[in-house]
């Protein structure tokens, strides 16, 4: 009886609050302690909310021509944003006051990423990769010889940074003296995601493929057959499963044992158009997917291929994020709506 109740409790999503941004939600970020969250509109404005109540704490102007990315400094005191104006801005994580603006070195900022210890901020704009101290001092600069940088990712628990673009992935230790290591691939990488154990770097690519790179060896596996370019990637906390978008179905690869080579992925069907966002819980088994059909779906892929729960949104589920305690999901839509949905 207790067992049944528990299972049922973990399979529904209940709306706790709803708020509105002036435009399509381009990025969301929940503070590391889960008390606040930031959401950016594609036209530029960034709003800061109380995560518990949905109350708006601050409205920041953001970036001219649009905000592209958001990240919290691990201590939660600073919110970092990047935009189409080529700048990276630091905002007070409590008041929303503008603290600093950094020139990222290119026409638009594609990604910002804080190292796990909060000591280094990496920013990518055009071909320029810059790393900064929390005070805004320069740590190192690197110019991609091949192409502009599409995404950045710190290897979990380390000082190794991966940057992706056309031509593959480049691994480096900013401020170190070793020359960067390049994982070459003749294609355009759109997004990258480290497995939590640091063993794999997964990439989603423009030419409708997904790559798994063994970070140690630098060898890769290429997964074909996606319907469209792949921009949605999410690892489960055990590093066993990688969920990918790039079509109507959520494709889940199993990396246990010999890895995903020659394996058949699980195909999760619920969306009626392309998947637009994916987020796995930080430490739990649940996965959420969003689609261009406006559906938000909750899955428990290790248990079932059927949706555990579905919520209809007012537009494309553009952004999804789990709270640090995995108890609620934040969704941002193409209509500018942001919702907190709690597991119940």
């Amino acid at each position, binding site marked *: 009886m207790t067992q049944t109740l528990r299972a049922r409790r973990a399979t529904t999503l209940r709306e706790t609050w709803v708020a509105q941004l002036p435009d399509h939600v381009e990025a969301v970020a929940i503070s590391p302690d889960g008390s606040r969250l930031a959401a950016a509109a594609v036209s530029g404005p960034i709003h800061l909310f109380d995560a518990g109540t949905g109350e708006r704490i601050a409205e920041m102007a953001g970036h001219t021509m649009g905000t592209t990315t958001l990240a919290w400094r691990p201590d939660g005191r600073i919110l970092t944003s990047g935009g189409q104006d080529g700048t990276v801005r630091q905002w007070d994580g409590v008041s929303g006051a503008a603290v600093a603006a950094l020139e990222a070195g290119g026409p638009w900022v594609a990604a910002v990423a804080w190292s796990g210890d909060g000591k280094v901020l990496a920013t990518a704009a055009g071909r320029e990769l810059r790393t900064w101290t929390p005070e805004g001092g320069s740590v190192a600069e690197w110019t991609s010889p091949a192409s502009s940088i599409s995404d950045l990712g710190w290897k979990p628990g380390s000082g190794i940074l991966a940057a992706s673009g056309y031509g593959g992935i480049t691994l480096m230790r900013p401020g170190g003296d070793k020359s960067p290591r390049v994982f070459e691939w003749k294609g*355009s990488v759109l997004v990258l995601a480290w497995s939590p154990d640091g063993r794999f770097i997964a990439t989603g690519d423009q030419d409708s493929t997904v790559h798994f790179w063994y970070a140690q060896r630098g060898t890769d596996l290429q997964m074909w057959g996606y319907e469209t370019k792949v921009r949605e990637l999410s690892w489960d906390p055990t590093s066993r499963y990688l969920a990918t978008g790039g079509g109507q179905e959520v494709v889940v690869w199993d990396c246990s044992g010999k890895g995903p080579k020659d394996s058949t992925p699980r195909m999760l069907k619920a969306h009626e158009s392309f998947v637009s966002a994916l987020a796995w819980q930080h430490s739990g088994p649940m996965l959420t997917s969003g689609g261009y059909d406006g559906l938000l779906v909750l899955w428990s892929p290790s248990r079932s291929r059927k949706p555990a729960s579905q919520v209809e949104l007012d537009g494309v589920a553009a952004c999804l994020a789990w709270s640090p305690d995995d108890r609620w999901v934040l969704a941002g839509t193409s209509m500018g709506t942001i919702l907190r949905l709690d597991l119940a």
Partner: protein
Amino acid sequence: MSIPAVPRIAYEPEPPPVDDRVPVTVLTGFLGSGKTTLVNRILTEQHGKRIAVIENEFGEVGVDQELVIGAEEEIFEMNNGCICCTVRGDLIRILGNLMKRRDRFDAILIETTGLADPGPVAQTFFVDDEMQARLRLDAIVTVVDAGHIDQHLGVQREAKEQIAFADVILLNKTDLVDESRLTALEGQIRGLNSAARIHRTQNASIDLDHILDVGGFDLSRALEVDPAFMEPEYPFEVVSTYELPMGHHEMVLQPGPDPTMNVLIGALAAPDRASVEERLMERVLAFSDEAFWVGSGDAITPGRGVHRLALTDTPMRFPFVVEPAGSFGLYTEHRPEEYGLEIVGSDGVIPATESITYTPAHVHDREIGSVGIAIPGDIDGARFQEWIRVLLRERGTDIFRSKGIIAIKGEPRRWVFQGVHMLWGGTADRPWGTEPRRNSLVFIGRNLDREALTSGFKACLA
């Protein structure tokens, strides 16, 4: 999906859905051509349209910065199934973001850098799902500096490619050169691209309707915007008329752009346009006969078919005899002034009475040019489909643009197609009605083989 892998030739009764995608105009042109002036006009003039401009370098555009976005001109290769093409990665990102915004734009203008190849920009709109769903490539507009075009065409491969790719060409800074020069420049541009619409401008001043939403890539409008495309092409470019006395004459040429030139001297009733028109088809046929090769000093015979002059890098003289006196037409494959051509009689140089220009069928430029094919009759749909598919797969790198209206056997409607390099697509358009069923195609590109293209297409006749 405007470019399907396999064209749909079958009859489709349903009307096409309304296309509410935002039109995109690609603006190319060399530094100093007036491209930036045009962008500034678009940003400042009261035209009632909301136009976003994507630039590679932030220029002197001080006006409405809200509408100007920086780009990086990032070109990469993309494997798209069986074909490989280059696209602009930065545009996919920037436009993807732009189209999410609630404040819709009426049009988007992408300004490329001076030396840019328009191919990757154009292909971006056909190979990326997101771009195709939200945006529609409208036209490639190329601005040409009338005062410096020669300089550019002489040394820069890119200048020719930009003209070859264009749907619309602004021949700008017309105040720098005289009327005869402008006519000559237009002829030169036509030699590179016979399908583009040419507008003469000063200070890049032009009604925006001529450059925005012109439907250059719109299958049903692609060929209708340009009446010149439907004009027949001739094996000669100029007919110069003369009144020649009886006796010995010489045709004197200076070194010019090509190593050979076909010429024909033929009698006319009078040295005027009407007399030239009267015997035009006869002379076209004569021009298609095998030519007599002649070198400097060799005699040529009026009325005796076409002569291919072997031209050297020194002045050349070709004697001929007029007997009896009368009116003559000198049919030349190129413009006589390109070779400083003169007819010299016993009393000195004899000026031409009239000079009549025709759309030449020859490729002016040995490297880049266009091939137009116009033949009546019905085409076997399956054979045509196979021919164009293989042609573009094998030669698509060199074929920048292709457009055509085809009469498919058994199809009551016109079948229209267009392509950029290897990417192409087609659809049934409006019914032929009372219009005669005919086929018109144009290929624009590098090292095109007119005869192979023509015979390849003719083999598709039903």
